């Protein structure tokens, strides 16, 4: 990933099950990529919320990354709102990348320009950590 993107860094990760409508096998849960870029679009909807982030590569060319999140059901519990980010916002997003090498991943965390960090936790309903 470092070869492809100037704003992307690779670290290790672990998986957390969240609301989804598809197999999670497309993503490499053992890797994390840190994306430093600008929000292009944030879509707040079921069954998945998603963010598109423009991330500069080594030559300064902007690459559009797709970031897939869980449903608003969980995000609201984790402090999210539909207007918490908007196009043009500078953000840092950590994802588990898709295995194919395409510029996309499943969400791990988001750091806003003011330093606040958002995750998808709590990640379960009906258990102690959902309260």
């Amino acid at each position, binding site marked *: 990933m470092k070869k492809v993107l100037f704003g992307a860094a690779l670290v290790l990760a672990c998986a957390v099950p969240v609301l989804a409508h598809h197999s999670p096998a497309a993503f490499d849960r053992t890797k994390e990529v840190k994306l430093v870029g600008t929000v292009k679009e944030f879509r707040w909807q079921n069954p998945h919320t998603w963010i598109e982030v423009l991330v500069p590569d080594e030559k300064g060319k902007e690459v559009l990354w797709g970031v897939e999140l869980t449903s608003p059901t969980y995000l609201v519990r984790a402090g999210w709102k539909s207007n918490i980010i908007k196009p043009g916002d500078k953000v840092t997003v950590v994802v588990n990348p898709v295995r*194919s090498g395409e510029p996309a991943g499943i969400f791990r965390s988001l750091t806003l320009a003011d330093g606040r960090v958002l995750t998808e936790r709590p990640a379960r309903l009906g258990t102690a950590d959902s309260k």
Partner: protein
Amino acid sequence: MIRSASRRVAGALVLAAGLAIGAAQLCAQAQAQPQTPPEPLSALAPANLSKSRPAAPFNLTGNWFIDNSPGIQGWLFGPATIPKLKPEAQKHRDAYLQAGKEGKVYRDDIGACWPAGVPIIMTRVWPIAMIQMPTAIYMISEFMNSMRVVYLDGRPHTDPDVVVRTFNGESIGRWDGDTLVVETKNFINDPHHWVDQGVPASDELRIIERIRMINDGKTLEIAMTLTDPKNWEGEWKGVRRWNRVDDHDIGEVECLPDLNEHLQSTSSKVHVR
């Protein structure tokens, strides 16, 4: 007078003969028409709801969420418990396992917006709203708002020559002590209906669920026995639990093609169709 009376008798005979012929024609027509059984009462008909019945041992009305504490594989039935598959089904399973080795995803039809169907819809990572009436239990998964009805009013399964086969099948329940026993069959024969990853379901799939409410009504336990002679040998058994969720109401969740276009998890090159 005599001639007049004779005329009246003759007229009556002609009339009687005409009526007899007409009646015979009506009978013949009636025999030619298919026999339509009387319509059963709807599960929500007041006359059905108000029938005298023994009190149900428990009421599972509420929102339930699969206990995913065993991890991702806990949402499914396998692979450890998968029975011996028939050759055609084994081909799918092998292809699924091979795709996994290559970092690919095999036939993720649910991701492509095909209905999950019973039993997988029960173990999706989405809450299920259940509403229990004396005559039926209505189960609505938040995911794609898929509806499943378990009839409790004593009706039999629909005539297989009449039933419309579906991904969720047709479920009929009866009480057995403190357990609700549900038999589900009449599934659709569709290559997009899967029991587990790489394990297909057929129209011969039959599921027996033994449902108990435990843990002071906070937990629902379902012991499932699955048979599908087209796809595997013998019985496939599994037990799953669902936890009550009192701080969440299900909402509208659609699987939309334009959403999938923005999700690499469903549109990426890693998919094997």
